[in-house]
């Protein structure tokens, strides 16, 4: 019987997010390349569209561990459930998304399964039957090529980097529901505090970030307006967070969040290495900065070397026209 690659997918408030599709699609691709059977596992209460999503991405079996007590994350219960299921099916590979949940859960599961664990992979390829991972280290200044020795292997994949591909031959996924009676709630989330209705940089397709070039916290409204017409999130450099202009939740870079949006617009950000570490895997980078020698222009696809107080409002206006 084929060995198993387990796609550990996450739900929030009963919904699957894009990172779940990325994990399923990556598991399916590796399964095809390595001759494995892909299975998805999801823990939660009621989950919308689980079977449909699995069918779309070519996963033929999904197991849903259900409990009204597990709608929110519980590190202890989730670890127990996934590692027990991994043992039951003798999974050889487990793939998680490198989200706040996946990064917390994957290493715990790895210990239980005596597995090696590689985190925040940006590329996974099959070389002669072995999975080789690429992951940024030293804040993206170097790339580590690594593999896991051991029978069980756990990987987390950076969100927004892996492609989702819908399966060519759609076979309706079989969804198995297992009710969980007494989950181990030794460590559990008792409440979720959402930041006021704002899109988070870690989940946005488009990010507009501001730095010291904005000269003062009040001028961030230019950034907010541009982000709004683009349907994107507001990001910030470390300098402006340390200066108290913006919240740490918006900080992009080494001591903030690592992001990989489709489009990253850096305004008044010079491009310190700590900042580049957090956003250099963005698909397209636009830089607006008055200093044409700023390092941000070295990694930008497009740049305007001019006064952001003139350029950002014009850009907001131009985009508003086409939307």
């Amino acid at each position, binding site marked *: 019987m084929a060995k198993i690659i387990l796609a550990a997918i996450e739900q929030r408030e009963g919904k699957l997010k894009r990172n779940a599709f990325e994990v399923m699609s990556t598991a399916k691709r590796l399964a095809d390349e390595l001759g494995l059977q892909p299975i998805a596992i999801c823990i939660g209460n009621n989950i919308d569209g689980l079977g449909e999503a699995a069918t779309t991405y070519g996963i033929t079996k999904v197991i849903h561990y259900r409990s009204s007590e597990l709608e929110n994350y519980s590190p202890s219960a989730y670890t127990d459930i996934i590692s027990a299921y991994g043992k039951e099916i003798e999974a050889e590979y487990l793939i998680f998304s490198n989200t*706040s949940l996946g990064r917390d859960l994957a290493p715990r599961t790895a210990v239980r399964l005596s597995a*090696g664990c590689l985190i925040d992979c940006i590329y996974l390829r099959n070389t002669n039957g072995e999975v080789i991972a690429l992951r940024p280290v*030293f804040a993206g200044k170097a790339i*580590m090529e690594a593999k896991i020795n*051991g029978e069980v292997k756990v990987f987390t994949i950076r969100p927004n980097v892996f492609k989702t591909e819908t399966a060519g031959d759609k076979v309706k996924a079989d969804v198995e529901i297992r009710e969980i009676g007494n989950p181990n709630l030794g460590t559990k989330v008792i409440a*979720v505090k959402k930041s006021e209705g704002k899109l988070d940089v870690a989940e946005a397709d488009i990010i507009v970030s501001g730095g010291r070039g904005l000269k003062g916290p009040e001028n961030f409204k230019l950034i907010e307006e541009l982000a709004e017409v683009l349907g994107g999130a507001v990001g910030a450099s470390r300098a402006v967070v340390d200066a108290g202009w913006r919240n740490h939740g918006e900080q992009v870079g080494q001591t903030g969040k690592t992001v990989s949006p489709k489009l990253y617009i850096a305004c008044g950000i010079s491009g310190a290495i700590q900042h580049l570490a957090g956003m250099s895997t963005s698909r397209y980078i636009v830089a607006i900065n008055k200093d*044409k020698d700023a390092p941000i222009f070295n990694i930008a696809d497009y740049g305007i*070397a001019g006064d952001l107080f003139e350029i950002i409002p014009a850009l907001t206006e131009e*985009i508003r026209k086409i939307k």
Partner: protein
Amino acid sequence: MKIAVCVSNVPDTATKIKIGADGKSIESAGVTYIINPYDEYAIEEALKTKEKTGGEVVVISLGADASKETIRKALAMGADQGVLLKKDGCYDSFSVAQALAEEIKAQNCELVFMGKQSVDYDNCITGQLTAEILGYNCISVVVNFKLEGNKITAEREIEGGREVVETELPAIITTQKGLNEPRYASLKGIMASKKKVIEEKPAKDMSDLTEIIRLTIPSAKQPGRIIGTDASAVSELVRLLREEAKVI
């Protein structure tokens, strides 16, 4: 209560990285090492907790001799005791976690703080691994921490907000920026730290579960186009984003 803080020293984030002759590690000559930035929040939270509950703070580091400087810094901030588990060139989080777990157990520490990740190999998993090996509870990426008796209530950062998490001792907490403002070592603290003992012993040899095949420096991206120097370039930028990049 005995509280442990695990610290590591890492290349200064402003340092230029060069790959060593083996192709698998970085060239250490010319690199300035600093305390891992996230570990400073761990030290501060340990000291704050000790000030409330009493007890002592032991600093544990795994690494080469140079890690002693990092331990000394924590001692100068107010930690009581240091342990250096000596090992060169260790990158595998499992090996690190196993060695740390052994020392935490030997020291009988019920509460452990460590940075949420070290900014060298950026693994972000050592705390969770160590906790799981010890059978301790663990909350990662913590920005708010409260201990009442045996009960811990903490907030951890997630996409779009925070999770409020409850658990009990024994536990490992991994610390994130925003948790506190790390104190500076006072002159008195620096003087006192010189008299404190750092115990040195070899880290137990563990087999790594992951293997580095090689490290490479990513090829520099071709700098993009500077489209213009004022607002007249905006329409061309929008056209490129729509037609060439197809991202808006």
